[in-house]
């Protein structure tokens, strides 16, 4: 997939087009790897996506149309990819920041002793009510049987 262009240098969210594909250069310091992968994944059904690592933290994303296209459509594609990239970056950030809380809630739900004791307490209350009912010595129909 070639992306020859006369553009001398790329900037973040600028893109170059060769008439069939657009190429964006992303700084992994701004957009986490998971966000780049996630956005690329979302575009696999719309276009050909290729990810290349240029340097330690620089990633080239090439989006190539699957059919005839023009510069306007390619520009729109690049813009939509940037929006998806931002969306994915936020998702990654939220997932990271709330990860500890999720783990805590899960751990408390499954392993917390107070939850078990509250269930035991409810069962004990039910038992106590049944015992109290027995104290009245009122015979209930289902206990009469055929006698």
């Amino acid at each position: 997939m070639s992306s020859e262009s006369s553009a001398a240098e790329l900037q973040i969210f600028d893109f170059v087009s060769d008439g069939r594909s657009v190429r964006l250069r992303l700084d992994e310091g701004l957009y986490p790897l998971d966000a780049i992968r996630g956005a690329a994944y979302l575009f696999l059904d719309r276009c050909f996506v290729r990810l290349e690592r240029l340097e330690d933290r620089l990633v080239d994303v090439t989006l190539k149309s699957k059919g005839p296209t023009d510069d306007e459509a390619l520009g729109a594609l690049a813009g939509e990819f940037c929006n998806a990239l931002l969306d994915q970056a936020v998702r990654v950030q939220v997932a990271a920041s709330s990860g500890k809380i999720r783990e805590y809630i899960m751990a408390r739900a499954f392993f917390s002793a107070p939850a078990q004791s509250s269930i035991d307490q409810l069962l004990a209350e039910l038992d106590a009510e049944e015992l109290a009912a027995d104290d009245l010595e009122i015979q209930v129909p289902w206990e009469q049987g055929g006698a």
Partner: protein
Amino acid sequence: MSDSLRTHAVDLHGSFYDAAGVAAAVEAYAELARITVQPTGAGLRVELVVLDDEVDDLMDHFLNHALHASVSLQRRQADGVAG
């Protein structure tokens, strides 16, 4: 091998394309191309000889398949670790 067969080569970085994802793509496209995969320092080098000249953009299709399989696998592994 016919001279008309088109050959493409591409280097895939391991941070995007993992070996299992590329292997899945190789299996899927085995009937349309002769594909060889060799490890490099940072990932994999894929050489693809197109067997059917009527199929366009075969390398692009292959790369989409490899990326989809790689991301899916990475997500399943992440879910497995989380779960």
